[in-house]
């Protein structure tokens, strides 16, 4: 574990520092467009902040957590030093450099295009180049995960790959492939225009490329959370993983169906045919499958722990669970948010129902509940669980940890439930100003105000999180025992090749991508007259 300690810590500190800044920006945005604050009179500041918030929270923060946790898992699961430590530092340097390259033009107001780019809006080229550097840095991680797996399998022929490593590599492959869409959009469409090499851009094609990335990126964010459900939660509460194979199948299913479904983000876009929208809608429905498998497996694993602790009867095992354990608490709160967020996602996934909430605050509420809620709360849990193994110092502020997880949960519910509701009332998203004095939307004012308080609770929770980590620096140095992942009820002795490798699944992933995206992309490329004039940010 010594080999990569500093590497993992660097990733996580950078990630959480960015997260802290972006969290404050988010709350500022909530405040200034609420009835509690007079209109700031300049929407540019609002969009500048949204761009910085989105870029940090969507690209930098989860990518660094996934990378850092991935390096940690590599050493802890394979039980040997990681191969390519220097390359990993290079990847980290690229992500850090990219972050600053991107955020400086945003801070200067030269790239207020929001993190989803929205061509034909075009910002300063350094913003996009910075994002590309972040992605390239993360691809170094993808390659290292693959190399480490391959070398381990070569040295251990026929042995089952440890589940934590299998899942981590699945997540890295998913990211490697899904990032290609946005990379194509940036390299071949946006950056040439931003550099002044072209005046026009095919915005419709750019949106299709971005949708390639946009949905599976959420599953990439989700991967560390799911890995923690399977490999940390059962161990931390004294139970067993219900099924190792079920876990592998869940991650394999993510690999196949998480990506070729992104056009459900473009249901209202005219440049994609209705047939492809329907096809993507169908496959989006199937992405519920690995989540349902996970919910079942984890609930079963937790039940095992409850019964081992003496719980009896149909529900008695629930009360026997170690609810004061932050891992147990965090996972339970994460599941609740995942349930609500997933239910909302069924609306978004439906080609017809989506029209009722498209481009409303419902969507913003949805992805904050899923990502900010269910996913990020498990990032905290991961940090709490692995931090002592990184610093050699115990984290012992258990009361603060529970308070932090509870405030994150309550804050996220208070933030996102009203957000969903005003979305149903028709409140549009991505707007800097709402005139609550107007009777037509005056009724939304109390709900928006409520969201501001939800955001404030989240800021408090973020501060608590940093306090817990900071207090961990003051405890006595100890040498923790070797890190352990959950053990399955029936640990695999040998596995079918399909559950121990990725060849077949990568083939299916690419094949399904070609079926679902091939024609729309080729068609848009071949159709003349689809380019529109680029609109440069700040053009006077």
């Amino acid at each position, binding site marked *: 574990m010594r080999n990569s300690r500093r590497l993992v810590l660097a990733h996580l500190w950078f990630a959480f520092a960015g997260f802290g800044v972006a969290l404050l920006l988010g709350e500022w945005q909530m405040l200034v467009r609420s009835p509690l604050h007079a209109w700031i009179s300049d929407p540019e500041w609002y969009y500048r902040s949204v761009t910085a918030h989105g870029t940090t929270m969507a690209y930098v923060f989860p990518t660094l957590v996934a990378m850092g946790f991935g390096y940690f898992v590599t050493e802890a699961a394979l039980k040997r030093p990681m191969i390519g430590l220097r390359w990993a530092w290079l990847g980290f340097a690229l992500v850090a450099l990219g972050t600053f390259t991107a955020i400086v033009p945003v801070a200067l107001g030269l790239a207020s295009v929001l993190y989803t780019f929205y061509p034909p809006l075009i910002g300063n080229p350094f913003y996009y180049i910075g994002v590309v550097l972040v992605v390239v840095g993360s691809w170094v991680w993808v390659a290292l995960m693959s190399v480490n797996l391959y070398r381990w399998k070569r040295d251990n022929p026929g042995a089952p790959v440890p589940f934590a490593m299998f899942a981590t590599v699945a997540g890295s492959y998913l990211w490697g492939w899904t990032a290609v869409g946005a990379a194509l959009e940036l390299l071949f469409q946006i950056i040439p225009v931003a550099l002044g090499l072209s005046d026009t851009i095919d915005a419709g094609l750019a949106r299709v490329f971005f949708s390639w990335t946009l949905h599976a990126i959420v599953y990439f964010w989700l991967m560390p959370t799911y890995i923690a459900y399977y490999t940390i939660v059962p161990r931390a509460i004294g139970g067993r993983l219900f099924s190792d194979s079920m876990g592998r199948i869940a991650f394999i299913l993510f690999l196949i169906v998480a990506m070729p479904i992104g056009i459900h983000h473009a249901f209202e876009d005219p440049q994609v045919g*209705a047939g492809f929208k329907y096809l993507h809608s*169908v*496959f989006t429905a199937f992405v519920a499958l690995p989540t349902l498998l996970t919910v079942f497996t984890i609930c079963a694993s937790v039940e095992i722990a409850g019964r081992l602790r003496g719980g009896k009867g149909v529900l008695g095992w629930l009360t026997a669970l170690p609810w004061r354990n932050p891992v147990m608490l965090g996972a339970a709160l994460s599941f609740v948010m995942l349930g609500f967020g997933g239910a909302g996602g069924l609306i978004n996934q439906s080609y017809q129902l989506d029209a009722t909430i498209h481009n409303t605050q419902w969507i913003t509420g949805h992805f904050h509940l899923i990502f900010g809620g269910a996913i990020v709360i498990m990032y905290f849990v991961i940090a709490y669980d692995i931090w002592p193994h990184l610093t050699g110092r115990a984290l012992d502020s258990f009361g603060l940890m529970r308070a932090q997880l509870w405030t994150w949960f309550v804050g996220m519910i208070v933030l996102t439930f009203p957000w969903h509701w005003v979305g149903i009332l028709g409140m549009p998203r991505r707007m800097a100003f709402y005139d609550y004095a107007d009777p037509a939307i005056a009724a939304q004012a109390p709900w928006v105000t409520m969201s501001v308080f939800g955001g404030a609770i989240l800021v408090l929770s973020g501060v608590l999180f940093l306090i817990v980590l900071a207090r961990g620096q003051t405890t006595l140095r100890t040498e923790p025992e070797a890190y352990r992942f959950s053990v399955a009820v029936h640990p695999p002795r040998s596995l079918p090749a399909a559950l121990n490798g990725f060849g077949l699944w990568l083939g*299916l992933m690419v094949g399904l991508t070609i079926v679902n995206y091939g024609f729309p992309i080729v*068609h848009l490329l071949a159709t003349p007259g689809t380019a529109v*004039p680029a609109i440069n940010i700040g053009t006077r």
Partner: protein
Amino acid sequence: MRGQGIVSLHNPWFTASVGITAVIAIVAIIAGFAWLPLEQQGARFQGVWDAICSAAGLVRNPPSAAQIVGADYPTTRVEIIPQILEGASAESIGRGATLALRCTMCHGARGMSQADSPNLAGQSPLTIYKQLNDFKTGARTSAVMVPLVADLGDADMRDLAAYYAYLPRLADHYSNTDPRPRIVANGAPMRGIAPCGACHGDLDSKAGAGWLRGQPAVYLRAQLEAFATGARRNDIGEQMRNVARQMTAAEIDAATEFYANR
């Protein structure tokens, strides 16, 4: 281990996973590309292939019965792209200065009007180019301007635009501290009115929208009223007519006074 015998019909993992995926895709494709389109009421497909092409997103010819109805008045022919007038040469500005001698009577010797005509000094070149074009093509009417632009060619209009854009704006000398009225800062979202300042300066400016700071109040008011009544209609998307029709008298007062006083 990987790859050895995985892609084989004897491997149940391969046959099951590929088979199930293929069945789902094929059923979804049949439903999405043929069955559901043909079930739609009034879709007017000429056969299954037509429905499939439609669902695939192919651009189809409109039904022959549908006529494209044009406006019954001249509309602007200028396609606004931010870059079309970029990089004016010194020669162009010089030619524009010569041509501008005929404009001085109303628009002032250096583009600052004494006659409640628009101040052109520092105006965005796209705005000047578009308005000159519109006067020439009849999209915008004016008893004074139309005869004056009749003999201007495209290059002349570009030169004039370059010259006036090159002159310094008087409004830049004004302080920037007056509170913006609500209509300028916020618009009126529930009536579909974007903030004036989002396009016409002060908050932001958009290609083709005139820079309004320091323009005469009489002129601004007259144009808003002309848009509201439809007397002026060279906004091809009716964006200004829709805004002006929805504005209250108090809002017109507030906007004109705000921009005129800067």
